[in-house]
């Protein structure tokens, strides 16, 4: 015979003002299984919990109903109270009479009281069918996989490795460093980007706990939290990294010239190349699309000049496997192509460039040795117009969101322009100046006051050519007049967009992404680092546009999450997950389709007892299942049952209404 205890909470005035709590307590006593029914002002407080513990022991209760706030709030609190009294914590039921009754029916106390009675009766009935459940233990492989070697991936890898957890860092290009390596100086302090980044890159390469795999991609991820198996494709570099000393003789002698993507195609690199002089690892790779030896079988100069014999034209892609427990995704961002801005003459006028092209030009190690030059005639520009929100906040041509970093880097570009070309003048067309961050507003003021950059509030309507100048027309809303600037160079602050590989990567990892291709976090405010899939975390711009400080902070947060996950030898998991009965499973596999966590796999079992013929049934992966119940609802043969929400429990609830 079930012995149920009912504990009704006032929640101060939150519940008591709108529900007749004493009446509710009396009503609960009418149910014959209820042995105790009491009330208290704050049931979650220590005296309240003590009341529950005492009642469990004194009345030898078999289940407990707490009528209070949402289980999201205090289910854990009360479960612990049950455990402390020696009772299985899953014998608790919470009747949510605050959010579901007193808060939403404040105008009708009688109805609110009746609804509370119903909710409590349902909880009592359900609790009678509750079963003892036990936390599931899952083993953990203590190795993290970091995808992407930009500043986000570097920071996450270093922080995890510093906690003496092995990390595998996979980077698709030949060197780590990412976008930050392309930057000259960084706002708001004008730190040299290379100076603060390259030491970290070297740390990655030399860290005993980091395995760096450059020029590679993750092509498969199987398993579940703590027990993933990743397949990594190492692209053929045609250079044996083990013997190569990085002397650079091959890149010097190579006769094939290719546009240099690291310098935004402003200059050329060779077909065998290292992306930039400070690359880590500082070993060249052969660009198979352009190497004449690989394309036509002629040339072979690099092999001839290599003293170590490290060049291997026969090298092929290699797939390696790693067992890992957690994944940090840090694939960064791309830049929007401004081609749709035809009214600006993008593509027609050579002297319209993008911000990253400008950044490379003003970089001391860039293709123009730190001086911005007009692409048309190679002259140093005097009047430079910067146009913000190119593609950003433009529903017609680009994307709806704000790219977040352009206001700041454009202010930086105005300052850098002034540093590099003293008699120049910067004109900045803007819609708003968004400078929210430590030292950011002050930095913009520096651009406006010290550098005397002219800020013009308005979107440029058109650009046309007049002689060798570009006439940039827009409104200055500050004085309500149309202005035209005679410009030597126009710099477009193009929008930050998600890497085009993101959707494919998201499908491969089994995580979700938004309409722009950014990978989705589990909760926009309270779980910004986790994905909906346990053990996969997000760092940097792959989740949303953000600047370097925010990226580094999120990367370190990822590391903390990974370390937390690996803190014990096993992972504890909520036992409220699905189980499938093989006898009833018809093998339709509809459950596989609806599972949002890819937690259901297939299994071959004998057709009958001792039979040699096989049939396919669905099987739940305990490590992955989050207990959402989608499979239970779709299963035609009622073969699936969700612990804590079994059919008898639900039916009991319905009968009690």
């Amino acid at each position, binding site marked *: 015979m079930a012995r149920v205890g009912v504990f009704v909470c006032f929640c101060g005035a939150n519940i008591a003002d709108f529900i007749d709590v004493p009446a509710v307590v009396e009503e609960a006593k009418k149910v014959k299984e209820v042995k105790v029914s009491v009330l208290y002002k704050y049931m979650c407080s220590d005296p309240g919990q003590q009341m529950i513990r005492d009642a469990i022991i004194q009345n030898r209760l078999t289940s407990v109903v707490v009528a209070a706030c949402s289980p999201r709030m205090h289910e854990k609190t009360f479960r612990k109270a049950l455990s402390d009294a020696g009772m299985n914590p899953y014998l608790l039921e919470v009747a949510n009479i605050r959010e579901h009754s007193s808060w939403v029916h404040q105008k009708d106390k009688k109805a609110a009281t009746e609804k509370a009675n119903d909710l409590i009766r349902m909880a009592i009935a359900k609790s009678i069918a509750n079963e003892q459940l036990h936390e599931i233990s899952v083993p953990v492989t203590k190795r993290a996989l970091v995808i992407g070697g930009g500043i986000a991936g570097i920071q996450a890898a270093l922080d995890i490795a510093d906690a003496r957890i092995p990390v595998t860092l996979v980077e698709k290009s030949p060197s780590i460093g990412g976008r930050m390596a392309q930057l000259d100086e960084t706002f708001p302090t004008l730190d040299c980007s290379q100076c603060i980044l390259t030491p970290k890159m070297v740390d990655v390469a030399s860290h005993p706990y980091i395995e760096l795999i450059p020029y590679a991609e993750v092509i498969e991820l199987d398993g579940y939290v703590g027990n993933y198996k990743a397949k990594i494709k190492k692209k053929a570099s045609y250079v044996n990294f083990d013997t190569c000393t990085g002397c650079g003789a091959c890149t010097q002698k190579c006769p094939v010239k290719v546009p240099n993507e690291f310098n935004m195609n402003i200059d050329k690199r060779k077909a065998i190349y290292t992306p930039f002089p400070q690359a880590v690892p500082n070993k060249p790779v052969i660009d198979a699309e352009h190497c004449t030896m690989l394309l036509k079988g002629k040339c072979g100069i690099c092999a001839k000049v290599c003293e170590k014999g490290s060049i291997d034209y026969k090298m092929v892609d290699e797939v390696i496997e790693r067992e890992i427990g957690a994944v940090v995704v840090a694939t960064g961002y791309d830049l929007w192509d401004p081609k749709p801005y035809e009214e600006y003459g993008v593509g027609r006028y050579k002297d319209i460039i993008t911000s990253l092209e400008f950044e490379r030009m003003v970089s001391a190690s860039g293709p123009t040795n730190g001086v911005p030059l007009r692409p048309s005639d190679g002259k140093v520009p005097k009047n430079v117009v910067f146009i913000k929100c190119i593609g950003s906040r433009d529903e017609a041509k680009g994307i709806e969101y704000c790219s977040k970093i352009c206001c700041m880097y454009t202010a930086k570009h105005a300052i850098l322009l002034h540093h590099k070309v003293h008699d120049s003048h910067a004109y900045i067309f803007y819609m708003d100046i968004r400078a929210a961050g430590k030292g950011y507003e002050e930095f913009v003021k520096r651009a406006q006051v010290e550098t005397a950059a002219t800020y013009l509030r308005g979107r440029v309507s058109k650009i046309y050519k007049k002689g060798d100048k570009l006439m940039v027309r827009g409104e200055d809303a500050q004085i309500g007049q149309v*202005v035209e600037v005679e410009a030597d160079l126009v710099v477009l602050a193009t929008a930050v967009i998600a890497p085009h590989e993101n959707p494919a990567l998201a499908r491969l990892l089994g995580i979700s992404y938004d309409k722009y291709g950014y990978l989705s976090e589990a909760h926009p405010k309270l779980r910004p680092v986790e994905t909906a899939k346990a053990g996969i975390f997000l760092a940097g711009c792959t989740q949303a546009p953000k600047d370097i400080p925010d990226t580094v902070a999120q990367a370190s947060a990822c590391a903390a999450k990974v370390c937390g996950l690996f803190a014990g030898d096993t992972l504890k998991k909520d036992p409220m997950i699905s189980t499938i009965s093989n006898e009833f499973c018809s093998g339709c596999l509809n459950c596989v389709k609806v599972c949002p966590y890819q937690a259901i796999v297939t299994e071959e079992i004998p057709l009958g007892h001792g039979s040699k013929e096989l049939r396919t049934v669905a099987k739940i992966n305990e490590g992955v299942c989050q207990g959402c119940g989608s499979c239970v609802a779709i299963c035609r043969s009622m073969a699936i049952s969700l612990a804590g929400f079994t059919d008898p429990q639900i039916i009991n609830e319905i009968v009690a209404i």
Partner: protein
Amino acid sequence: MITLGLQDQNTFLEAVNKKSGANVLECYQCGKCVSTCPVSGYMDFPPREIMQMIKLGLKEETMMANSMWFCLTCSACSGRCPREIDIPAVMEAIRHLAIEENYRSDNKKVKEIRKFHDIFLDMVKRYGRNYELRMMAEFNIRTRNLFKDMHLAPKALLKGKITIGHESTKSAKAIQKMYKLAGKLEKGEK
């Protein structure tokens, strides 16, 4: 349409900054001055726009504006300016520049205000202080509006706000010296 970038737009800005001691570049166009100013409604360009025009180097437009002549130098704007810009000093500076470089607005009110200033300074130069009755008379004659505010004269006389015959000042000579010195300084500066 205004064309920028043809010449160095900072020349005018620097002249204003030098003369006023303020830095117009500090202005971030919040408009608090405009809503504070008691006479901004009468100006063709309220203070915020004047600041932006100076920044853009729009010298002609700024010099021909009526704003600086309407400015009362009450300093309500600068008292509330979040960037602590001395806006009345900027207005004063562009008044000076307009006189120095002989910019003359056709606006009737501006003409009157400038005459008023001239007559006032003349009174002080002559008598060492203001001689109200004569000032009123001269202003009315020079603006060709003989009977303007005449109805106020009896009341003002009775209250002692104006007097018949001027009161002499002991230091009239000293003030005249100051005028001479200022004149010399101004020429020296030019």
